[in-house]
């Protein structure tokens, strides 16, 4: 995004001025009530009714009228073509007032209709007041009552630089296992509390296995851990779990809540995004590889800039575009939808990365936190050039680049030879040819075959040969668009001919790419524009008529290629394996620009495969040519026109090469080499794409109330000096492109010294704590502002955040600090003293049992039944019956998986930091009655019997081991035996009643609180 410095300054100025609360915006000497009057009564009117034709922006767009600018005090004072627009204190002499009172003939303003009398009265009053106008540049600070004091706001704990707190003194130092314990114990001791004792090994194993991997420990893992009596057995367990790929699957899912991840657009039609899963896979890999968190954030904000064209860069920025987006858009709604999309991105960035609630700032300054509206629009402006798209991304980018380098190197001498020839030999040879050969040559065929300049497709790989063929070479898909570019210097083009050619190399000889050789050409579009840059004529999309066709399939008629419905099209079944042709006549005047015409021919194939071999020709004779008429290459007639026009020899090589052996050899060598250009292996990734338009400040967040362009800048309260953002948003230097604004945002966000880094670090370590304990040190994970709750242990939070930054932003060391601590490993046993002193357990004198999340419940049920499919990555599972981990279930906004939402999986529409934890009877119904749970109980029993248990007691024991990671107490065994006996009796004389009774027992075990509440 290159912005001229002056425009940059001006737009920034407008924004500053537009927010009454931006302290540096207001003029020096104006009384607050005058500014308030201007801001409430005058500026909105000027902006709404006048800026369209009388502002810097109107000027930039060439829409300025009468040379008058009313978007600055200077503009109004110096006035336009008819003099100053106003005279302060003299409303009746002011042109502005005369114009709006419609007292100037042909100068009635606004031209669309007279303003309401009350508005005219306000403007009059304002001029009588002396036209106080705060819109002057960089004036000193005047605070109005709505001003947000950003400097004062920096005193809020979360916005301060990271401290590196020392470890507090504790009495019971023996309890301490990691530094985290000092902070916990010091507070407990101060409150007269003592922590609970350390939990049993079995309980710890179950707790930490679920916390780190989301699955239950197996009996083998249990045995191994219980038998390991070494001092570091637990530490080794943690190492193993953190290295397990299941860790990434578990912790990626936590992150997906934060980033409102889904794979569809929501709203109407809820369009599925087949390439969206790559983001999920990228997160899992990032977690497993312990990608530094600052890089993790930078990649999500600007991966497409950091690693352009690369798979992981494209996958990572899937973050930005994962939000909802309507599936039906008209010109009337497109702008609001765009601002809604930006709002989704800004809010998710605010809540997810920084724990700041920014959604409200679309309409006004934050009501509670020191966040002016400008901060919101600054981030929105950094996202201005970001839209969403399914993109074809090279899976092995680096490899392809390497091959390309080799290829280009090999091709360089060929290019050089051609260049040398064009400079040294061609002119003479061309001249001689024009003199000796040209007069003798004839070309009169009605059809002239285009010598193709380029042929590309969204997916398919295409190449062209010197006989005008466009040839498919790989990567076919249903739904593709071929774009073929051709030129002619001739005029009077009246028709085009499309040859769909069969070929032995095509499936069933073609001409289509489907297995049976058919194709469906959905729509054809031809755009004509002048070749010569000096010709200012506009590009036109030609209106076409379906003139003639060799054959058309019933229901797939040729005319359907120009019916503006890509869903219908031309096919040729059952006449496959033959050549076909079709003729489009131009509906209207023949085409041909002075200086030559370039045609872009788009062939769109929808819901079916495309063509394998194509040739395109045109007709510019006096009569419309027919399919049966002869064809000839266009080259000779092009040369004749060029020769007549005395074109420079270098411009004719392409055409001339057909008549000159040496030229042909050299061009063929280049073309032949190009044909071998290494091709990337493309895959569809739903990600960001360059696009979009400037972002404007919106009054009350409404798109029809724009007020000046926003420019990228970030959260001021997190910066260490007033103009600090210049560090991240440098003005573009000469001959250098500016830093991409999203990269600036990413750099700012992860700058632990002067940018968003301190808060970024605090928010993420708090999320880790939250997932391990069920409540964050800051209980409101997504809100570190004044409306959130304050940290229970601020020093601990800063300690963890500092450690994170110090250790290169790696998360696994922080996990270790937490799960190896005594506070984490203590039991949930009730301590009567703490019940009195600390009923809400803020001081963590015990660690209560926690219910598993939806995914962990489902995954563990599958695991116990022996059904869990541990395959990682790839497209999402569309069936809820899938046996893969829940993180791989498709997240379609309109069809969320009932079992997941029932157990509080959030709706993926906004960032969620703290999932709910509800208990409702539908959950009980699901475990009591669903075939899913009953089936898995039966499978669990089968697994138990596979271990050849010697008795019913052994079955019970094994079941406990599988499901609860412990052996039953004797009284439990007795109770379960009695239950199995009772069930057997109820089942009566059925042959397998004993086994069925055991199945009922397994099912009951899966219904127990102990199963889904992990100690």
């Amino acid at each position, binding site marked *: 995004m290159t912005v001229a410095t002056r425009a940059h300054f001006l737009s920034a100025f407008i924004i500053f001025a537009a927010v009454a609360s931006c302290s540096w915006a207001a003029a020096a000497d104006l009384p607050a009530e005058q500014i308030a009057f201007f801001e409430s009564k005058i500026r909105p009117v000027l902006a709404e009714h006048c800026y369209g034709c009388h502002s810097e922006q109107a000027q930039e767009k060439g829409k300025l009228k009468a040379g008058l600018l009313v978007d600055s005090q200077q503009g109004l004072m110096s006035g336009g073509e008819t003099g100053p627009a106003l005279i302060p204190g003299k409303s009746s002499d002011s042109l502005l007032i005369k114009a709006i009172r419609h007292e100037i003939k042909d100068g009635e303003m606004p031209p669309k209709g007279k303003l309401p009398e009350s508005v005219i009265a306000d403007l009059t009053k304002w001029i009588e007041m002396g036209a106080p106008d705060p819109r002057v540049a960089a004036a000193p600070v005047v605070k109005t009552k709505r001003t947000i004091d950003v400097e004062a706001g920096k005193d809020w704990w979360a916005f301060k630089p990271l401290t590196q707190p020392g470890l507090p003194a504790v009495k019971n130092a023996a309890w301490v296992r990691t530094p985290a314990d000092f902070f916990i114990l010091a507070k407990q001791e101060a409150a007269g509390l003592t922590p609970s004792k350390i939990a049993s090994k079995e309980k710890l194993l179950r707790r930490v296995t679920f916390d780190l991997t989301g699955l239950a420990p197996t009996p083998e893992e249990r045995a191994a851990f219980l038998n390991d009596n070494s001092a570091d057995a637990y530490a080794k367990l943690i190492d193993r779990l953190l290295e397990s790929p299941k860790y990434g699957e578990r912790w990626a899912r936590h992150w997906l809540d934060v980033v409102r991840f889904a794979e569809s657009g929501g709203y109407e039609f809820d369009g599925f995004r087949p390439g969206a899963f790559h983001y999920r896979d990228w997160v899992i890999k990032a977690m497993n590889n312990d990608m530094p968190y600052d890089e993790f954030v930078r990649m999500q904000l600007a991966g497409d800039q950091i690693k352009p064209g690369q798979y992981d860069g494209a996958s990572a920025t899937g973050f930005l575009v994962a939000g909802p987006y*309507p599936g039906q858009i008209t010109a009337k709604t497109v702008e609001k939808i765009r601002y809604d999309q930006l709002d989704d991105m800004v809010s998710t960035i605010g809540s997810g990365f920084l724990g700041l609630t920014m959604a409200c700032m679309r309409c006004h300054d934050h009501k509670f936190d020191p966040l002016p509206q400008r901060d919101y629009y600054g981030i929105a402006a950094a996202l201005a050039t970001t839209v969403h798209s399914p993109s074809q991304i090279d899976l092995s980018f680096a490899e392809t680049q390497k091959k390309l380098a080799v290829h280009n190197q090999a091709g360089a001498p060929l290019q050089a030879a051609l260049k040398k020839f064009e400079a040294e030999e061609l002119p003479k040879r061309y001249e001689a040819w024009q003199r000796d050969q040209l007069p003798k040559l004839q070309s009169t065929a009605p059809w002239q075959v285009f010598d193709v300049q380029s042929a590309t497709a969204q997916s398919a790989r295409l190449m062209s040969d010197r006989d005008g063929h466009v040839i498919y070479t790989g990567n076919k898909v249903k739904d593709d668009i071929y774009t073929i570019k051709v030129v002619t210097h001739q005029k009077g083009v009246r028709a085009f001919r499309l040859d769909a050619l069969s070929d032995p190399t095509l499936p069933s000889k073609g001409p289509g790419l489907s297995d049976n050789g058919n194709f469906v050409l959905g729509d054809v579009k031809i755009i004509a524009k002048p070749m010569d840059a000096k010709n200012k004529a506009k590009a036109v999309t030609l209106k076409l008529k379906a003139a003639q066709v060799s054959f058309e399939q019933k229901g797939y008629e040729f005319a359907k290629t120009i019916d503006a419905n890509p869903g219908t099209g031309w096919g040729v079944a059952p006449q496959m394996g033959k050549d076909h042709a079709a003729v489009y006549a131009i509906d209207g005047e023949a085409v041909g620009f002075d200086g030559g015409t370039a045609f872009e021919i788009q062939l769109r194939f929808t819901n079916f495969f495309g063509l394998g071999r194509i040739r395109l020709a045109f007709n510019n004779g006096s009569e419309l040519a027919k399919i049966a008429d002869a064809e000839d290459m266009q080259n000779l007639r092009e040369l004749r026109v060029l020769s007549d026009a005395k074109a420079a020899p270098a411009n004719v090589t392409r055409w001339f090469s057909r008549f000159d052996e040496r030229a042909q050899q050299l061009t063929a060598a280049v073309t032949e080499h190009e044909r071998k250009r290494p091709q990337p292996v493309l895959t569809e990734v739903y990600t960001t794409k360059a696009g979009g338009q400037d972002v404007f400040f919106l009054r009350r967040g409404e798109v029809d109330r724009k007020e000046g362009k926003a420019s990228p800048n970030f959260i001021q309260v997190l910066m260490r000096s007033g103009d600090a953002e210049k560090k991240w948003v440098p003005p573009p230097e000469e001959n250098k492109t500016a830093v991409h604004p999203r990269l600036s945002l990413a750099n700012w966000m992860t700058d632990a010294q002067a940018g968003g880094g301190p808060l970024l670090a605090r928010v993420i370590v708090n999320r880790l704590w939250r997932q391990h304990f069920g409540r964050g040190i800051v209980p409101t994970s997504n*809100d570190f502002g004044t409306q959130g709750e304050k940290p229970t242990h601020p020093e601990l939070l800063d300690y963890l955040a500092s450690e994170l930054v110090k250790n290169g932003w790696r998360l696994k060391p922080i996990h270790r600090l937490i799960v190896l601590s005594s506070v984490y490993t203590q039991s949930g046993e*009730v301590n009567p003293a703490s019940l009195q002193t600390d009923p809400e357990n803020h001081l963590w004198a015990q660690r209560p049992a926690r219910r598993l999340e939806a995914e962990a419940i489902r995954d563990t049920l599958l695991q116990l039944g022996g059904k869990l499919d541990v395959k990682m990555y790839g497209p999402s599972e569309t069936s809820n019956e899938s046996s893969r981990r829940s993180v791989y279930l498709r997240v379609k906004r309109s069809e969320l998986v009932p079992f997941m939402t029932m157990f509080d999986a959030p709706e993926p529409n906004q960032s969620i930091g703290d999932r709910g934890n*509800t208990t409702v*009877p539908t959950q009980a119904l699901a475990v009591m009655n669903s075939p899913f749970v009953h089936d898995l109980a039966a499978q669990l029993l089968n697994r138990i019997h596979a271990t050849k248990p010697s008795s019913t007691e052994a079955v019970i024991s094994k079941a406990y081991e599988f499901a609860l990671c412990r052996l039953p107490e004797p009284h439990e065994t007795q109770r379960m035996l009695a239950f199995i006996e009772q*069930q057997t009796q109820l089942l009566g004389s059925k042959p397998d009643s004993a086994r069925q009774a055991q199945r009922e027992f397994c099912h009951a075990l899966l219904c127990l609180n102990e199963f889904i509440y992990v100690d």
Partner: protein
Amino acid sequence: MFNDLTSNASLLPSRRRFLQQSSLGFGSVALASMLAEQQAKGAPAPLNPMALRPSLFAPKVKSVIWLFMTGAPSQVDTWDYKPELQKRNGEPLPGSDSKTGFFTTSGKILKSPFDWKQHGESGSWVSGIFPHLSQHVDKMAFIHSMHLKANNHAPASMELMCGDSQPGRPSAGAWLTYGLGTENQNLPSFVVMHERRPRGDDQIWSAGFLPKSYQALTLDARRNGVIDNLSRSTMESAAQQRSSLDLIKEMNQQHAQLRAPQTDLAARINSFELAYRMQTDAPEALDLTHESDATKKLYGLDNKTCEVFARQCLTARRLVERGVRFVQIFAGKNAGGDGAVDDVPWDGHNNIETNHRSCGAATDQPAAALLADLAGRGLLDETLVIWGGEFGRTSDSQGSVGRDHNPKGFTIWMAGGGIKAGVHHGATDEFGYKAVENKVHVNDLHATLLHLLGLDHEKLTYRHNGRDYRLTDLGGRVINEILA
């Protein structure tokens, strides 16, 4: 959809978040103090955390039935009679603007193709597509000046139900159950019925950021309104299940005794007993076989054109009779062959006449029967019935005889407790194009709805991502003009 057994007994902000999101610490202590506070307010104080929550002031109604006419009926072809439209068919529509519709309209007036008559003592005009409902106009309060912002189905449906056209906010049904709890612990409190799912899907009846306990239970007419997992597994007998549940309860109680008195453990023990009772109560509530033949005939169960909606309306009556708080039916059936899609049946872009005749025939008799039946059973006084679509339609034509979307003016009517019967509130311009008089915003509609249930829309809040959200956002005015 069900009361959360753990947490929602509280509207107290300081404890609420702690309880809804965590199962830490000694929730029961918090719960006990909450119940004490409720007791102090005169509320019943059972030890059951699912207790019904008291209204802030005396409610006029207990339940709501919202008949959602999916796809948006045209105001000027249903309840908003405009003689000017009839007179000036084909003339340019004064004030017609290109921004109102969703697609492109002609700018030329399209008269209503239906016969209009006045009905009842109120003399209310009704188009000919409602021969049954027109008999009940004296029970209805009409709001002719509804308006909202979104001009496509999904965002407008969200705006109408959740107050905002972007997804993520809780819907009115979720807010109500959050605010009031439920009268019948053995049934869901928020039920949505549909045939083809309306455009916008779950997002229209979303619990948004509220706890999942306020999710709607959806009954899909294509699956005969089955509730998932409601029936006992075929793998076990009733006696086996009971024995199993006894075991689960016993083991869970032992487990809970050894742990901090966590309310969620107790709540889960309780949830199995509730689920067990639901197994019998819910099928009974949904079973229409014991309704009299006269009743079935009244609703039109025997009439193929309106059979589906008839079953849904009769089910709705049975549900509110049993204390269900909020029932919403997405209705309409387009058999007109005019291209309107099933998920937005009232969407008469191509032919307003065939479309609305068909949708009218599919909805008129059951809706009228519902009013009559509720009244006959004395239930109408404690129920609020709302009829309307997500927006209205343009007064100018789309194509030759269709109408485009129009969010700038449309009609909704309400009937039931607390409603001033027979009034017409607000008005569109003389062509029915835009609301001009006493305009009623969605926030106002919601404020009124909450008011009728005894809730103050400014006080029913929920803290999410740093902000206390309301159903009515920053707006909302109770429409006193339509209240008795």
